[in-house]
């Protein structure tokens, strides 16, 4: 128990240190708007990919509809902060977004989660497209033109903090009774059922959880970029998040962080390559997958608890 607390303290320290470092860099002028943009994009991608990793990597359900739930969060913020342009309005809109996304996830998940593998992927992709098409044709969402002039209510600090909080919450969930039940579904659905695990329920729990984090990511996206349009949330957007999850390692939250940072940095650096950027990006993608088929980190997790444990063991020897 002591090691747990110690590890938690270390984690908290790391998070605060990260914040202080970025803040200092910003103050010293090392981080300008450009770098800040990159960091925020990485942060939002971490939030989105962590949620998707919970669905794909931990519950083993292949969802390709993450952008649909992201859209719900983004539009909730876009619409609500038009009339309540205060931080309070922003958090309110985020909560509304989460709530709507949860309802949508239940509507989508209850029937489709009984499908398996690629069939589930294609069904969730369809569901996300339906959400996008609805947004594209509704008046309140301003149709294809999207919403712009969304008040800038999310700074990089907001994104950073919320990224930390969602990661903590997700990791905590994984390391709990519920998280283990979710993983047992991934490992062997039949055996899990035979052990009394209501697999439908836990699959749905993971799916809804993921959808809620997607809505948070979307909400932050809307408030930081200040422009949203239905085309931001198409199939390719879902795939972009999937790529982060798989590249980092399915089932590794640490991997998700690493992949989001690597891809975010790569994308930014490739901005200097003009039209070649997407060619280099796709080649990088293919090569990483061929040489690291289980992703950059596989299912390895960074754990201060284990690190500490190792240290103690070696100290005793």
């Amino acid at each position, binding site marked *: 128990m002591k090691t747990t607390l110690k590890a938690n303290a270390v984690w908290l320290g790391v998070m605060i240190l990260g914040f202080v470092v970025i803040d200092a860099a910003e103050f010293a002028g090392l981080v300008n708007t450009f770098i800040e943009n990159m960091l925020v994009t990485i942060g939002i991608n971490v939030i989105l990919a962590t949620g998707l990793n919970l669905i794909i990597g931990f519950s083993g359900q292949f969802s390709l509809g993450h952008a649909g739930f992201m859209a719900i969060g983004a539009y909730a913020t876009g619409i609500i902060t038009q009339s309540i342009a205060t931080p309070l309005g922003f958090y309110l809109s985020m909560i509304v977004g989460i709530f709507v996304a949860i309802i949508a996830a239940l509507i989508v998940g209850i029937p489709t989660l009984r499908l398996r593998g690629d069939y589930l992927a294609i069904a969730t992709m369809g569901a996300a497209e339906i959400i996008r098409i609805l947004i594209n044709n509704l008046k309140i969402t301003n149709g294809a033109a999207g919403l712009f002039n969304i008040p800038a209510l999310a700074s990089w600090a907001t994104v950073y903090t919320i990224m930390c909080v969602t990661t903590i919450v997700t990791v905590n969930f994984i390391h709990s009774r519920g998280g283990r039940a979710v993983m*047992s579904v991934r490992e062997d659905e039949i055996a899990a059922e035979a052990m009394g695990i209501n697999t439908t329920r836990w699959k749905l729990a993971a799916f809804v959880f993921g959808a809620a984090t997607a809505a948070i990511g979307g909400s932050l996206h809307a408030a930081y970029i200040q422009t949203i349009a239905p085309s931001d949330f198409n199939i390719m957007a879902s795939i972009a998040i999937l790529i982060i999850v798989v590249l980092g390692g399915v089932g590794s939250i640490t991997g998700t962080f690493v992949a989001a940072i690597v891809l975010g940095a790569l994308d930014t650096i490739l901005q200097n390559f003009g039209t070649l950027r997407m060619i280099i990006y796709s080649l990088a993608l293919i090569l990483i997958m061929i040489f690291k088929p289980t992703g950059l980190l596989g299912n390895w997790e960074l754990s201060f608890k284990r690190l500490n444990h190792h240290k103690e063991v070696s100290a005793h020897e």
Partner: protein
Amino acid sequence: MSNRLLDAQHLVKNFGGLTAVSDVSVHFDQNELVGLIGPNGAGKTTLFNLLTGVTPISSGAITLATDQGVQTLNGQRPAQIAQAGLSRTFQNIRLFKDLTVLDNVRIAMTNHYHETFFGSIFRTPAFYRTEAAMTTAAQNLLGIFDLTTVADQPAKNLPYGIQRRLEIVRALATKPKLLFLDEPAAGMNPEETADLTRLIRQIQHDFHITIVLIEHDMSLVMTVVERLYVLEHGALLAAGTPAEIQKNPAVIKAYLGDETTC
């Protein structure tokens, strides 16, 4: 009749046009050790699947005696049946391979410990208490079956025999009234089988539960079980004590006939 635990009447299972189980009636009493034998393809595993809800029955009735009286298990999902007190192992080991031995056991305890979602994501004191209780219980169970040393290893890294044992421990962790073991000795050498025999007896004695096992190893079956069901071609061929079964002409014919064709 008072100690009747599970009663299955006139079970039928059709797969398309094929009848895998036809009109089989079996019953298991409290703290009994029953064997289920029969040639390959006789429908033994299918019968297990029907009883544990993995495959739905085509017709028939399954009832379980509980504290609240006799309950029907017809149409229940496997998870509900497991929660009602029926647990099992699988012919082709189905552990949660990438998870640790400890987690395998803790997952089976899911329904006996309650953690709120809020508690687990915000780590309330109640969460830590439940988590600690759960871990202690799991470790105790692992201790009983000499698995403490491998508790932190992924299940897939264990040797075959230990995996079989872990699967039994995992099934026990659900606190079952009735434990179905599907060919627990498959692939074991005589020494391991002897260990297993002791283990099964110990479980029956220490946990006061009913055990039903499918087994091909006749030495194991005949030494350990109190009662036997013999299946052939999806139908019940005979029932009785090991001694009775060994003398049963129909069974001898079925088994000898089987051998001559080999």
